[in-house]
């Protein structure tokens, strides 16, 4: 019984994958059918997960257990539902304000403490003796200088300020222009790396699906 269900799901997966690959021939009903199935399943699955993972486990169960503090998010959620009505939409303002305010505070705090300070500390660590365990201090200092130049040059590239001169168009200073040109190179390398990563991920997905198709065919043939 278990084997039959596996084979059925294997066949379903196989044909759905082939339908997706049919887009190579252009837009066709098979591809649209698979797209509709995917969207529908995702929406349905999302609703089920929200119901079981959020509403029941975090709202209903605590309420039935007598947790009165749960009434606060319940009340705020009720206010948020008022956004559906044009007449009562103002009542949803406090809930929305709370969401946006708390979200912004958490995000900004994390960005400052996690990324900004962390990256500054990481950039300085190249120049701290004994902080690196590889290559010796000289190589680390060179590496740190390289990182520092790359960081400053990239920041200089995004500096669009220019000094006004008499009877001439405003232009960047020569030093800033040189740094901006270097920063452009760093940005190009970064974007190239990101593009290569995206391409690699796509190729990995192609290999994985091809492996699935071939494995399925071999399994069915055998």
């Amino acid at each position, binding site marked *: 019984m278990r084997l039959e269900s596996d084979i059925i799901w294997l066949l379903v997966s196989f044909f759905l994958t082939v339908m997706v690959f049919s887009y190579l021939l252009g837009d066709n009903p098979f591809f649209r059918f698979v797209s509709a199935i995917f969207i529908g399943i995702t929406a349905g*699955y*999302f609703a089920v997960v929200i119901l079981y993972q959020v509403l029941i486990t975090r709202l209903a169960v605590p309420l039935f257990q007598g947790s009165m503090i749960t009434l606060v998010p319940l009340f705020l959620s009720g206010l948020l539902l008022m956004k559906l009505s044009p007449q009562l939409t103002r009542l949803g303002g406090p809930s929305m304000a709370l969401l946006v305010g708390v979200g912004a505070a*958490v995000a900004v705090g994390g960005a400052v403490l996690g990324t900004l300070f962390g990256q500054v500390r990481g950039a300085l660590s190249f120049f701290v003796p004994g902080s690196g365990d590889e290559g010796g201090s000289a190589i680390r200092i060179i590496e740190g200088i390289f990182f520092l130049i790359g960081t400053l040059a990239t920041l200089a590239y995004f500096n669009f300020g220019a000094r006004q001169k008499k009877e001439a168009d405003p232009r960047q200073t020569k030093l800033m222009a040189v740094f901006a040109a270097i920063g452009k190179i760093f940005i190009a390398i970064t974007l190239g790396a990101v593009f290569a990563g995206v*391409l690699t991920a796509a190729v*990995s997905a192609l290999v*994985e699906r*091809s492996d699935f198709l071939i494995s399925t065919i071999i399994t069915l043939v055998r």
Partner: protein
Amino acid sequence: MADIRCLVCDRLNDESAERCWFCHSMLPKATGPLTRHEREKLANFYKKQPLVKNPSPAAEPEKTDENTVPQTPSNEDIPDWLARIRKLKEEDQKSSIPEEPLPPEPQTDKPTSVTEEPEKPPSVETGIPDWLYNLRETAANTPAEPSEPTHSKKPAIDESLAFRGSLRDDEYQPLGEEEVAALLNPLILQPSEAPPVENVSADHMEDQSQPEPPEHITVSNPPHEEDLIPSIPQLEEIPPIELEEPLAIERGESPEFASSPPIKEDLPPFPSFLEELPDWLSKESPLIEEAEKSTESEASQAEKELEKAALPSWLSPHHKEEGTAPVPPAAGAEEFTEEGVLAGISGTLPGIEIKDRALKIHPFMPDASVSAMQQQNAQLFQQLLQPAGTRLLAEKAAKPHHRGEKILRLVITLLLLLGVIYPFFAGSFTGVFPVLYPAEVVASLGVIQNLPAEKPVLIAAHFEAALAGELNWTAQSVLDHLVSRGVPIAITSTNVTGYAMVNQFVEQAAARQPTYALEEKVFNLGYLPGGTIGMGAIVNHPLAALPLTTNLQPVTDLPILNAIHSLSDYGSVILVTDSPEIARTWIEQINQLDAPVSVIAVVSAQAAPLLQPYFDSGQISGYVSGLNGALSYELLRLVPGQAFQRFSSYQIALLLTAVILFIGGMIYFILGSVTPSAKGGG
């Protein structure tokens, strides 16, 4: 006659006046008559200044009827100051060389000098002096005027001249010649001057309490009767007026008046000025018309010299059609406004109807010069505004079926598929494996290798189904390692798809390790809602953020997770994600912990470049990215997995992709340099 000198403007006023006639300031008590020096100055000034006046409507009676000589007042009737002035003048004429007689001083339609003494008239009935009364009678005997001038306000300055004659010698105060000239200039009309206009300041107009002379009094200042009478025949001989400044005349001001601000302020509006032109000035209407034409020509010339606006090419047709304002009605066509807030007021500027102001928008401009790039951008913008379905249908209808493109697409796909499939059937080909392992992978392996077996590991997932295949192979190596070491695993996900997929990954890894008790060591804490807020909550209060498992079992009831009060109590946090942003957010929140916990990221290859700085800065302990990282991890563990088996296909597919990209880039470069339009169209 006692006069009062104003302390503010230093001008003389009548003794009965309480306020200055000129500056309206409070006056002191009366002063004496005109000093000798001032009398001399006045007399000399009259000699120097030829009092030539233009013929005015008021002077026309003398002109039309020469036999009618106005009876001048007798010496008994004239005021004292006038008598003194005459006497001084006679003395001067006797003592000095005979000078040319002063030009005639015709009367104007407005009184240029009114020596009004409201409370001291000889005539009780009229309240004016007798000499003035006689003068009025003389004017009444003359033929009737066609129209009485409306602007018959008394000038303000000449009154000071009239009363200055009564200044006493002991109260002599030197008066500068410039001041005298300033006082007398408005009284002296040059041949080129405009007709008399109101010479009354706004303050005078407003002050109704000030005594005003009778309107019909048109006595010149000073009334030199002997000069006035002979001047009557000479009026005909006055040469035509030569306009020095046409524009000034148009505005109703002479060059001299132009320098006098009070006169300028009281000028009537231009249209009414034209309507009330006296006859003598109407002769000059051709000159005025000529001046108007010259003004118009100058304006048109100035308009031609204006630099043309640099409008965009696509806007030029709009400007051609819509920039032409509706022609307003001709000036003067409507003397009085018939409607609106200005109804009944003449001389108002004609307005433009609102309906005429409405711009006519032409959606289609056949003559618009639009470049191909602009047209393409407009079409793109229009497509973006369309609903998705309509846009797709439009694109499908607009794009012709290029058979070549479809064939090229199929060829590339077949090439890639062949490259991927070939290693499946060619067992001898294994690809080129790396001999140097990335530092982040080595570090990740070291962290997992050193994890205590009793401490659970939190796996936080967030990825989409499209990259589930890549992440499955990537995470498999790490999960196999964890399962092989028997580490308890707690699973959560910040998105719904990841919640289902990561559970499957763990189950697959546990299935490959039969000794690992899945039910006892794997706890699915479910979906973590709230995004960043949820991450922050689980970092600070893991039990409060994830209180129940997916089986609705309280976390506190689980012996393994019962001891978890902070995220630091986990042995490690493993992030499984395809998004660098999610990984960054997790790292940022975890870094706020006082007691740090080791973080390992299992990410897609596309997120690797953005995670490298966090590894370099030590904010994460290590990461495994993509198939390449998984292969390195397997090679380090000496346990080959899916990554090791399919790495050859992966390498061939990458090589083919790189070759195709290079060839396509070269073709595009060559074709683009040959046909530049291909770039714009592309």
